[in-house]
């Protein structure tokens, strides 16, 4: 089962290329920072290690003993004061495993080392031999207020003109100061160096403590992300709008449509999650997406064709009537049979709008499985789907209301009469476009 989860997380990572970014300096790196400073009459070193995902995994395979790490770091850092080798003793340390990419951890260790007394102005040399030969950022600064290019390994410069710093030796002059003894970072600055660009929604599942407030806030956030997500391309907004206009839907229809989208999307995510869990031996899940796209596209074409057929039949019917009596406004409702504003048509459109599970929702589900927080994950996905549906319903309502506004203004006209037919054509074209785009990727 554990192996399956690893496969899953890997599969998930494939599905969401944009959800997270790797350690900015590469997954192999071990990054080192030393700040040598004098507080009062004593030399101190604030040493920071930042391990990217792979070395962190290796370290945790061996078990991380922070005291042993601190001692090793102290041994590997050679400092002389006035030519005499300084003895460095770890006096404080802090260890954290900030989240990295692909559900992995990184490691951040901070150690305060206490050095010898500094009585007057003395010469200082520093040579860092820790993890020599291992790639990564290497920085040494002297002085409590000296600027660190990487903000003490919190934020690596993104400039294209900045190579990873490679400073392992420094030479300076130091003297007693009235600066305070250096402190460890605390809280979030230790826990989460600003590096992983995680999607807002996918981050929700990783929260540590689930107080009632956190749960409520998470639900609200999931709702919001769902609503926002529906605005991104490919969530059937065009189709829903066109359908409601083409079918002369009512506000009730728009609401039902929203409900169907929510349910379908939730089921879709669960189903794909199940498929991913159960069938990972046979298929690479990302290959499923083009298929789903193609199927959804094809069903949209069918829906469009059905609407178009009904419109054409309406029109023929109307023409037959018009031979007898003059046309009057408000007539279009209920005159011709409306074969599919019925539940079946709505269902079809709702399903085509909601059947494509959003990758980020899938990530949440899979992450929930791996964190043993299945129930919370499920609730989050329902909230997410609901948000999605709210947006789609809103757009649908706007379409319905706009259309009836047209109706009241009554231009009797061509526009109003053609609109439904045009909508049907729009649906067909959108469906064909979806199918054509999906097909080349299907293998």
């Amino acid at each position, binding site marked *: 089962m554990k*192996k399956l989860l*690893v*496969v899953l*997380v*890997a599969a998930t*990572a*494939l599905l969401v*290329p944009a959800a*997270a970014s*790797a350690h*900015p*300096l*590469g*997954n*192999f*790196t071990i990054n080192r920072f030393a700040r040598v400073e004098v507080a009062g009459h004593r030399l101190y070193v604030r040493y920071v290690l930042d391990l990217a*995902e*792979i*070395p962190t*995994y*290796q370290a945790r*395979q061996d078990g991380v003993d922070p005291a042993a790490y601190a001692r090793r770091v102290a041994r590997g850092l050679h400092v002389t004061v006035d030519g005499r080798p300084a003895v460095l003793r770890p006096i404080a340390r802090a260890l954290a495993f900030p989240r990295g*990419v*692909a*559900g*992995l951890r990184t490691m951040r260790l901070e150690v305060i080392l206490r050095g010898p007394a500094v009585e007057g102005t003395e010469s200082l040399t520093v040579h860092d031999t820790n993890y020599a*030969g*291992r*790639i990564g950022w290497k920085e040494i600064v002297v002085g409590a207020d000296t600027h660190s290019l990487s903000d003490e390994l919190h934020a690596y410069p993104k400039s*294209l*003109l*900045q*190579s*990873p710093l*490679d400073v392992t030796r420094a030479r300076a002059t130091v003297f007693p100061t009235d600066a305070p003894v250096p402190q460890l970072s605390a809280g979030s600055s230790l826990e989460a160096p600003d590096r992983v660009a995680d999607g807002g929604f996918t981050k929700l599942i990783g929260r540590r403590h689930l107080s009632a407030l956190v749960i409520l806030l998470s639900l609200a956030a999931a709702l919001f992300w769902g609503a926002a997500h529906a605005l991104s391309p490919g969530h059937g907004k065009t189709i829903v709008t066109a359908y409601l206009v083409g079918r002369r839907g009512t506000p009730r229809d728009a609401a039902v449509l929203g409900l169907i989208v929510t349910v379908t999307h939730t089921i879709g995510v669960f189903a794909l999650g199940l498929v991913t869990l159960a069938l*990972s*031996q*046979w*298929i*690479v899940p990302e*290959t499923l997406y083009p298929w789903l796209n193609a199927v959804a596209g094809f069903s949209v074409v069918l829906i469009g064709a059905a609407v178009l057929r009904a419109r054409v039949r309406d029109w023929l019917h109307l023409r037959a009537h018009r031979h007898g009596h003059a046309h009057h406004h408000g007539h279009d409702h209920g005159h011709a049979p409306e074969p599919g504003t019925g539940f079946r048509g709505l269902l079809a459109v709702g399903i085509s709008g909601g059947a494509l599970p959003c990758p980020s929702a899938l990530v949440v589900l899979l992450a929930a499985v791996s964190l043993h927080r299945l129930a919370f994950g499920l609730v989050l996905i329902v909230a997410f789907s609901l948000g999605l549906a709210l947006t789609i319903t809103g757009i649908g309502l706007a379409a319905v209301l706009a259309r009836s506004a047209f109706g009241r203004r009554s231009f009797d006209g061509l526009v109003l009469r053609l609109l439904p037919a045009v909508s049907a054509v729009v649906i067909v074209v959108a469906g064909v476009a979806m199918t054509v785009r999906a097909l080349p990727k299907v*293998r």
Partner: protein
Amino acid sequence: MSAAVLTLGGAFRSGGAAAAPDRLPAGVAEELQRGFAAGDTEAEIAGLQGELRLRPRDTKALETLGLAYLQRVRETGDASYYPKADGVLHEALAVEPRDLIATAGLGQLALARHQFRRALTLGLRARSISPTTAGVYGVVGDAEIELGHYAQAFAAFDRMTALKPSVASYARVSYARELIGDTAGAARAMELASSAAVGEHEPYAWTRVQLGLLQLSTGRAAAAARTMRLALASFPGYPFALDGLAQSEAALGQLRRARTLESQAVARVPLPQYVSFLGDIEAALGDRAAAARQYALIGVIERLLAANGVRNDLDIALFDADHGRNPARTVALARKGYLERPSIVGDDVLGWALARAGHCTEALPYSTRALRLGTKDALKIFHRGYVAACLGRTAEARTYYRRSLAINPHFSILWARVARKGASS
């Protein structure tokens, strides 16, 4: 295919560890030589960065810096230079959209990231900008090789060599010769490449390592070890050389020494192929627990590569098939990898994955196609024998097993044993 082989006639052939992600031939180095001697890359980078801070739209400096970043990845294995190279090369293109060096440089970057179709597009664009620049044929040819278009690839390498004999073109001649089974000719071409690279630390070490791998592929492990040591001497700590020397020592039966060396390579750059070989050595030494830890690390590296959008399905499939991990999923991965990289490497890995999953009838055509160039690669020939054995064709299997062992009796720490057993049965 025979047409291509004929045009290569005297000049060409090569082959090799095409599954290794970092087998980027020395094209970058060649471009760099115009500006400065590689080996001084770090200083050169600092200089160019300084120039660009003053004149940010200096195309020449931008493109040279992009190539220098690519060279730096080869020297250090530090992939954080890739996005930087990408960035400055694109800036150069923004200033001059039809810039030759920037276009070809992006092609090299795409090759390094295993985006072979994109690399081909960029290479062809570079060729249309300047059909008489040797380097563009390197990009085109490398991409064609990975896409399985051997005739086109060999033609590109022919043209490249005619335009400019250099480390880069000789190295490609060597690879082409190896592919069509002329290992001796491949070694001669690599010697030429090596002598053209004298005085440049990394390119020289790289050609030595390639030469050592050629020696190793023909079972001359002791000679290979000497060659690898020479590479290490000219470029201390060079991970390719550490790995090559570890392979040579393992072939010589010095497993403990091999373990030490491969651990050093892994400690510098934990590339998946290094980690898996280290695991194999540890397993061979009987240290199952240590091996299991290396294999678990492979899983983590795979997750990271996938998360970073690196296409390495064939490499993962090969590792999984070798270690009997999840055969059905392995086949799915290999099929996907094959579509991205329909070369003899794709044929070989897909055939091997199918055979290991028990689909031997389907494996046969792939494994047969993997040998269509006449490559004298003991592992591919062994795979073909394994497929035959699985189909119950014992005599045929024995022939292939014997052939693979005749080429290199120590071709694999995992499979040479199996071949020996099958060959004598």
